[in-house]
């Protein structure tokens, strides 16, 4: 577990900053809800007149006057984008940073199997994603208690579970890509996360692009569907976990035979 501890020690500041930023915006959003609730009728009317924009964010199927409706759109975007960027960033740099910073020579001239290095690095990544999501979830619940609203446990729980799966998929896919890279690669990871997010928006806008929902991890984080169906789309999640497994397998196949420069 030496590398797990080392990776967590190296990444803790990053984790604190991202958790703090996402948590802060979540808390602010939830604290704004009581004020928003009083203007719910006006807001619903305003959103109804926004056409495609309303559909893209699933606002046509959610009631902004309820906590879960408001939470699904506003807070969902905060965790969706923030968490996705965090997962992509730590995944894409996990292996490539060793060659970029020339620390791979130090690490890989110790008597550890490369497969062990991969397993421990992946464990550290998954732990960081779990910690971020757990803390953000707890902050959300605490904020709901503060504003005196009943907590919609099932809907909030399912939504956060979907975000966790989404981030796990992104971190694993980016981990796989990271094994092929040698230089700074944050842009690739962030581009992938943002691209996946916009792919889902496009799929919401057009029936012809519905298939994109099966490719992007944001396809199964749609609050409107989770709230109305009261369950997760297991088919899309299974496909997502398939991509995650491919990413991890690619990392093991490539990195165990890779020349380290």
């Amino acid at each position, binding site marked *: 577990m030496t590398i797990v501890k080392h990776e967590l020690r190296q990444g803790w500041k990053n984790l604190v900053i991202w958790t703090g930023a996402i948590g802060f915006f979540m808390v602010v959003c939830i604290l704004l809800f009581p004020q928003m609730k009083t203007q719910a009728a006006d807001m619903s009317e305003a959103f109804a007149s926004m056409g495609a924009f309303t559909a893209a964010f699933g606002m046509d199927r959610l009631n902004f006057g309820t906590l879960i409706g408001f939470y699904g759109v506003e807070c969902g975007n905060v965790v969706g984008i923030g968490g996705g960027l965090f997962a992509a960033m730590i995944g894409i740099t996990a292996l490539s940073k060793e060659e970029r910073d020339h620390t791979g020579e130090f690490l*890989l001239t110790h*008597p550890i199997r490369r497969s062990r290095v991969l397993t421990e690095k992946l464990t550290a990544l998954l732990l960081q994603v779990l910690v971020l999501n757990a803390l953000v979830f707890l902050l959300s619940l605490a904020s709901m208690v503060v504003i005196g609203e009943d907590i919609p446990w099932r809907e909030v729980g399912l939504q956060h579970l979907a975000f966790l799966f989404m981030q796990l998929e992104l971190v694993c896919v980016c981990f796989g890509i990271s094994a092929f890279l040698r230089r700074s690669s944050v842009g690739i990871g962030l581009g992938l996360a943002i691209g996946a997010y916009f792919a889902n928006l496009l799929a919401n806008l057009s029936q012809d692009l519905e298939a994109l929902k099966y490719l992007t991890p944001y396809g199964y984080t749609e609050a409107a569907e989770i709230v109305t169906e009261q369950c997760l789309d297991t088919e899309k999640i299974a496909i997502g976990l398939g991509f995650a497994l491919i990413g991890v397998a690619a990392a093991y196949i490539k990195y165990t035979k890779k*020349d380290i420069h």
Partner: protein
Amino acid sequence: MDAIRTENLTKNYGKFRGITNLNLTVPQGAFFGFIGPNGAGKSTTIRTLLGLLRPTSGQAQVLGFSVTRNREDILRWTGYLPSEAVFYPGMRVREVLKLSADLRKRDCAKEAKTLCERLRLDESRRVEELSFGNRKKLGIVCALQHDPELLILDEPTSGLDPLMQREFFEILKERNAQGTTVFLSTHVLSEIQRSCTQAAILREGRIIACDSVENLGKTNARRVTLQGRFEEAGLSGIRDLTRRDSSASFLYSGEMKALLTRLAQGSVQDLTISEPDLEEVFLHYYSEGGEGK
């Protein structure tokens, strides 16, 4: 058993040459020098021996273990100092040493402390605050603290001041006397001459000479330095001729009788004929076509 043995070891980077059909044997307990100009393939050889690079063809064994199949066994008993030691930012020296020891599942605290004291390395300093020389010292302690059977050192003294260089070589000689094999890659020929018993010379990815340092230094050529008038035209075997005012200096590998006849024909006031120093011999190897003596 040899500490290092390679058979036709080849490593190419796509179209680019790394090393070609390298046959190298380093006996256990040797203090072995590995020399060659920049880009000759010294670091490629070392990285292949340590399993960082996969050979394109050929075989290599380190301490009896295959570099492709038993990488971890090799690294367990080997200490490696890279030419540019880089460590994780934000860590202190003692944390880097602890990490290195933990990765080896060893407690090296006592040896690390002794080495840090000898090399005057402050264990409380942060890695990013260290000068190039101090980073090198940290790399040296990481390479030595687990008491390896084989030490592979790539340009170990760059950045170290002369006092530290002396201390470092003292440590290496002590370890070598205790049975540790030292494989030293360097540009500094005086280090080879002073410390190594055997050496191999690498040029353009191939070994062009491998022998005891004493034998490598032997040559038929002589350094001739004279004061006065001398006409070299028509005399074969003259290289590296330099003239300044009324003096001349050159390496001569032709017939001595012909040289003496020519010198007698000129007006030479002073003459010295001596063996060239090791550096001159190695420069001869480095230069194009310098495979013979």
